[in-house]
C-alpha cells in the first residue's frame, strides 16, 4: 500500500480539525513515513458538527474545516482553520476559528516504528468573546511516536501548550466553545488502527489535556474509519467528551486529495 501522505499530515494535525491540531497533536497515526525527496501537497475539507454543554453555555455548532499540507522527506507543514455556525444559549453566531500552523519532523524510523517532533502555533483569528478563539496565541510543541503490533498500529503523542501574550482569562469555563483548551497544559493522544482491507482502516482514538495551574482536565475519545480511493482519502469520526466539557458528541467527516 502506498504511503498515504495525507494520512501522515492528518495524523500530525489530529484529523485536521484546527483545534485538534493545536490541542491534541495526534501524531503517529499508524502510517509509514514517506521518504520522498520531492515535495507533495494535500488539500482537504472537513465538516464537523457537535453538541456541547459547558459550565455556562450550551448549544451546538457546525463547521467547515479547510486545510492545506506540504511534505518533503521527513518534514511537513500544514495550515488549518475552521468556519463555524455556533449556537450558544440560544444565540446563533458565525465566525472563523483560530488559524493553526503546524510543522513536524520525523527524527527516527526503524522496523516500522517512527518517532518525531512537532510544533503547532495557533493565531488568535477567532473571536474570543464569541467562543470561536482563545484570544491569544498558543504555542504547542510535542513529541510523537508510532509502531506496529501485528496488524494493529499504535500511536501517541505528548505535548505542551501555552498561551503567549494577549488576555489570559478564561472565566466562562471550557473555552473556546468550538475547541476548548487550557491556558497552559500537557496534551496527550493515543490511537490504534487496523486495516480492514486494501482501502479501509478502522481505529480508536483518545486525547486530552491536563491543565498546569488553573483549568480543567479534558478527555475525549472516538472511533474512526478511513477510506482511501486513489489520491482521495475520506475519514469518518465520531467522538465523545468524557471530561472537561469539550463537547458531548462530535461527528467529523473529512475528505482530502494529495498530489
Amino acid at each position, binding site marked *: 500500500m502506498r504511503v498515504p501522505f495525507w494520512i501522515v499530515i492528518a495524523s500530525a494535525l489530529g484529523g485536521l480539525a484546527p483545534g485538534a491540531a493545536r490541542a491534541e497533536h495526534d501524531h503517529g497515526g499508524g502510517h509509514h513515513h514517506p521518504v520522498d525527496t520531492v515535495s507533495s501537497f494535500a488539500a482537504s475539507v472537513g465538516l464537523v458538527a457537535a453538541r456541547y454543554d459547558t459550565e*455556562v453555555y450550551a448549544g451546538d455548532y457546525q463547521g467547515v474545516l479547510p486545510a492545506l499540507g506540504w511534505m518533503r522527506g521527513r518534514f511537513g507543514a500544514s495550515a488549518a482553520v475552521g468556519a463555524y455556525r455556533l449556537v450558544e*444559549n*440560544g*444565540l446563533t453566531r458565525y465566525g472563523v476559528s483560530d488559524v493553526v500552523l503546524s510543522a513536524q519532523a520525523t527524527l527516527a524510523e526503524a522496523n516500522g516504528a517512527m518517532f518525531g517532533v512537532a510544533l503547532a502555533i495557533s493565531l488568535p483569528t477567532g473571536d474570543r*468573546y464569541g467562543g470561536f478563539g482563545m484570544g491569544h496565541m498558543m504555542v504547542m510543541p510535542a513529541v510523537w511516536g508510532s509502531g506496529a503490533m501485528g496488524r494493529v498500529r499504535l500511536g501517541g503523542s505528548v505535548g505542551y501548550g501555552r498561551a503567549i501574550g494577549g488576555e489570559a482569562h478564561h*472565566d*466562562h469555563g471550557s473555552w473556546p466553545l468550538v475547541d476548548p483548551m487550557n491556558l497552559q497544559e500537557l496534551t496527550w493522544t493515543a490511537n490504534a488502527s487496523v486495516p480492514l482491507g486494501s482501502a479501509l482502516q478502522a481505529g480508536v482514538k483518545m486525547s486530552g489535556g491536563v491543565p498546569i495551574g488553573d483549568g480543567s482536565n479534558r478527555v475525549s475519545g472516538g472511533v474512526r474509519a478511513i477510506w482511501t480511493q486513489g489520491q482521495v482519502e475520506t475519514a469518518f469520526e465520531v467522538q465523545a467528551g468524557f471530561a472537561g466539557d469539550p463537547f458531548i458528541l462530535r461527528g467529523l467527516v473529512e475528505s482530502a486529495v494529495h498530489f
Partner: protein
Amino acid sequence: MRHAFLLAFLVACGGSPTPTGTVCPDPDPGTLTYENFGKPFMEKYCTWCHDKAIPRSQRNGAPIYHDYDSLIGVLETPDHIDEQAGSGPKASNGFMPPGRCPSTAGGSLSVDCQQPTEEERQQLSAWIACERVRPHTF
C-alpha cells in the same frame, strides 16, 4: 495613513472589556442603591436575557449564572458587569447591552436594545463598586 488604518482597526475591533477602575468613596455616600438604581437599571437593560427564569435555549447568548434579576445575582459577577457595561476613570465599556434585544424576556431578537447613557454607565460602575462592599445578609 498608517495611523488611519490603526484607528480604523481599533474602531472595528471595539476594544476589549476592561475594568473601569471605579472605587467606592470612603465613606460610602449610599446615594445609589439596589432599590433606587440597580434594580430599575437591570430591568430596563439586562433582564431581557440575564434572568434566571429564562431557559438556556432562550437566553440569546447570555451566560448561565449571569442573572441580574436579583441583588445576589448581580453580586455573583460584578466584575463582568463593570467590564461589559460600566464606565469609569480607566475605561468606558459599551459591550452590553448588545445591538439587538428581544421585545419580551426570552423572546427573539426583534428590536434595537435601549442603550444606557454615559452617565448611567458611570452610575452603574459607581453603584457596583459600593454595593459589593456593603454588608448583606443573604
